[in-house]
């Protein structure tokens, strides 16, 4: 291997032991090499094993995870068999890691500076003053303003983006050769994500630290990495230069994934083409291509033998038997199909100057208003998209509209009658009309109840039907939400994210509402699944004549599903208009910023030459 090759992974295998003792092969025969200063993206959906692979590199596997085979050579030294002392020397010093959730990844009782200081200390820097200087320098480098003072602040005093920056500083403290970033921006807003990705890029260029970026977001891949590794079902299915892979995908999965990603360009009222089915259950995976079951171009041989990762053209490698034969790239996905939907009718829901402030109680600390005079209307059969970043008040709006919270001020009319502060009975009636789908499919389902009970809950609450009638209705609803009625007896815990969201939707539909408030219904889901859910919602709207409020932070999705879009910022609606108009001809600067930040899965035309490698920080 040449000096360029820094990290070399050869058919790495990782297994977990399920509680029932059965083995679970999370990663199977993964091989790739990482060159000095290279930026490599590992992309995939839930269960693709991308994170597990990342964690396996420096043996950070949680719980029962263990490496079953293969080698991880860091400049020749095999980490798969290294002892603890060796590993500790590698962790941080040679391979730095950044994790997904900046909210939990920082120790709440240690100051920002202390985090970095600890790493420096752990790797042999004994001089306190020097460490302090270096700490400040690093914080400054990752863009923490006023680092001298902020070094002594605690994590909760920083914004999400800043925390991620601190994490990056921590990871880079000991000047590693590799920065392993596991979904570093998933929890962040688009604008912040943009900044972080820029930062990572700069650092890579300046320090020559190789970057391995684990993500599920094709946009991020396009934005940040030269090379991409597409994973599915624990194996690498495609490996090649980002530009090549994104434009001319060789593997059906890659193609499907790209097709499922909503593009800002696609006009309103079109249907996303998702990948049918859901990610494979790794406990059941046998021989054959893991994707076979969801693949549209599947052939018999796919099911029999595991396809090897074979070079097709240039330095593109694909693990697909048919693709190996194919010299031409796959046909580009059909342009999103328009869906025929009835034109919106009369106004159903009307909000006027809604205001809401939290933390009102302890008069000592009055919170900033979450809603600051929000007015909107929702027509029958219409989908109103609401876009905004975290803290923009969009979730509050959803809750106020659904009467989960009552507004402090303003009025809310349902079919003309004022329902801002309804009486008990009135509230009951309103809730039958207005239902809600929640963002987090985990948190919004009572873990102690079976799916059946959860869906039946509103029926009981609204006194709809007797026991048997309810049972039938539940089955009906489950089917409606695209679930097998047989699952009624199981607990939420045994479902995947997408399925849970379907359960949530079934529950919301139970009292046959006319208005459905969807608070970020898809932001917690994989792209392929996301497409399914969005599709489901649009279908339901058409079939049941629902009025939808569709809240999300991803403009592209919103544009596709919505008739109109309202952009929220700091508790206000800064811009409203038809979906296409808002996205094509934004008037408000904030809207423009959002559009600019939205990562698109199209490779940057040209990437600037990497500057001379240098160990020193700029």
């Amino acid at each position, binding site marked *: 291997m040449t000096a360029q090759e820094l990290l070399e992974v050869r058919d790495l295998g990782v297994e977990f032991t399920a509680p029932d003792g059965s083995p*679970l092969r999370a990663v199977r025969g993964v091989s790739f090499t990482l060159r000095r200063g290279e930026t490599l993206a590992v992309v995939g959906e839930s269960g693709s*094993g991308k994170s597990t692979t990342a964690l396996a590199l420096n043996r950070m596997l949680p719980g029962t995870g263990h490496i079953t085979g293969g080698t991880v050579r860091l400049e020749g030294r095999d980490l798969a068999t290294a002892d603890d002392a060796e590993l500790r020397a590698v962790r941080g010093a040679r391979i730095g890691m950044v994790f997904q959730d900046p909210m939990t990844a920082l120790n709440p009782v240690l100051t920002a500076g202390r985090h970095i200081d600890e790493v420096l200390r752990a790797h042999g820097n004994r001089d306190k003053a020097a460490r302090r200087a270096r700490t400040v320098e690093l914080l400054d480098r990752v863009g923490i303003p006023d680092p001298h003072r902020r070094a002594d602040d605690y994590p909760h005093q920083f914004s999400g983006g800043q925390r991620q920056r601190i994490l990056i500083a921590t990871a880079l403290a000991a000047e590693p050769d590799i920065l392993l970033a596991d979904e570093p921006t*998933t929890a962040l807003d688009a604008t912040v994500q943009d900044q972080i990705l820029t930062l990572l890029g700069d650092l890579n260029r300046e320090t020559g630290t190789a970057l391995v970026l684990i993500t599920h977001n094709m946009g991020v891949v396009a934005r940040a990495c030269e090379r991409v590794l597409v994973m599915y079902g624990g194996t690498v299915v495609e490996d090649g230069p980002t530009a090549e892979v994104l434009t001319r995908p060789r593997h059906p999965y890659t193609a499907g994934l790209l097709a499922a990603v909503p593009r800002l360009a696609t006009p309103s009222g079109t249907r996303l083409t998702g990948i049918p089915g859901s990610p494979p259950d*790794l406990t059941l995976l046998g021989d054959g291509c893991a994707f076979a079951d969801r693949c549209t171009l599947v052939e018999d041989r796919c099911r029999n033998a595991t396809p090897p990762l074979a070079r097709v053209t240039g330095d593109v490698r694909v693990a697909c038997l048919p693709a190996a034969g194919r010299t031409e790239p796959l046909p580009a996905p059909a342009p999103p199909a328009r869906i025929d939907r009835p034109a919106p009718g009369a106004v159903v829901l009307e909000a006027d100057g809604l205001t809401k402030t939290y933390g009102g109680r302890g008069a000592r600390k009055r919170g900033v208003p979450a809603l600051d005079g929000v007015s909107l209307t929702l027509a029958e059969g219409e989908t109103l998209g609401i876009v905004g970043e975290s803290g923009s008040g969009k979730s509050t709006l959803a809750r106020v509209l659904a*009467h989960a919270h009552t507004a402090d001020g303003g009025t809310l009319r349902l079919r003309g009658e004022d329902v801002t502060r309804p009486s008990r009975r009135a509230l009951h009636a309103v809730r039958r009309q207005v239902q809600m789908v929640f963002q987090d499919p*985990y948190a919004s389902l009572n873990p102690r109840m079976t799916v059946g009970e959860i869906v039946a*809950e509103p029926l009981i*609450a609204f006194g709809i039907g007797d026991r048997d009638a309810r049972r039938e209705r539940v089955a009906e609803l489950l089917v409606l939400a695209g679930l097998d009625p047989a699952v009624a007896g199981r607990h939420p815990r045994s479902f995947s994210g997408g399925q849970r969201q379907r359960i949530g939707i079934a529950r919301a539909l139970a009292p046959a509402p006319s208005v459905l408030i969807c608070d970020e219904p898809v932001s917690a889901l994989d792209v392929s699944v996301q497409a399914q859910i969005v599709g489901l919602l649009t279908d339901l709207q058409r079939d049941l004549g629902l009025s939808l409020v569709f809240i999300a932070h991803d403009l592209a999705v919103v544009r596709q599903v919505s008739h109109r879009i309202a952009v929220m910022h700091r508790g206000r609606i800064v811009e409203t208009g038809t979906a296409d108009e808002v996205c094509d001809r934004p008037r408000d600067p904030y809207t423009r910023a959002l559009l600019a930040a939205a990562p698109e899965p199209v490779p940057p035309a040209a990437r600037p030459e990497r500057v001379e490698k240098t160990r020193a920080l700029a």
Partner: protein
Amino acid sequence: MTQTTDLLTAAPPPAARKPRATPRSRHPYRTALSTARARTGLVLVGLVVLAGLLAPLLAGHGPTDQSGQSLAGPGTPGHLLGTDDLGRDLLSRVLYGIRTDLGIIAVAVPAGAALGCLLALVAAAHPVADTVVQRVFDLLLAFPGLILALAVTAILGPGRIPVVLVIALAEVPVFGRLLRGGVLVQREREYVTAARVGGGSGSRVLVRHILPNAADPLVVQIAVSLTVAVFIEGAMSFLGVGVRPPQPTLGAVLSQSMPYLAQAPQFAAGPLITVTALVLGLSLIAEALNREIRR
């Protein structure tokens, strides 16, 4: 998020990751109780309880039958564990002692727990009620238990009632605070909002949704409290305000054995071993439940 889901479906969640995704649909308590740790606990507790229930069959003598031979050593014909200072058979004393203790703690702890939870629910109803209830808890906690025991017994006269009362009173704030805390946490969970939007009335949401999820720590606490109860009973017997003599309790037998600790250690051994087994068993169960609930 996706990253989370990733590990979830890819790996059985190590405690680190989001808990609710264990790909199995059994009730966590059942899972907990089927662990080796819990099984051992169940066996230990079971043995003690059984011994208590079957006392009349197992014991050769009445627990209060006295004889001339005081402080007979273990293995004395007719007295497996020997006799106490008044020539009563120790085995029977211990067995019936367990019986009495079980009778007490089986009433006192649930009673205290129930009352505590009730107060906690009242507290959940309204901020004003909350402050009042909390002050009540503070007061109960602040009152030195054993001194209270002395006073209560002086008022009510000796017997089970004061013992039960004292134990119950001690448990009220413990459970009350636990549940109150749990409710406050669960209240903010999204599924509760969902239930409210789903049209559930305040009481229904509380009972059907919040309670079952807030109850977990209570279940663990019960196991802990039972051991504490045995503890209190012993202390009260030692202070001479326990169950009316000559009825044996583990605590009573123990405290009677104290003067003879040097000459006749077997006197103390019986009850000590029993209590230890009980405590060990309960703590094992508690631990198992705790681990499972935490996942």
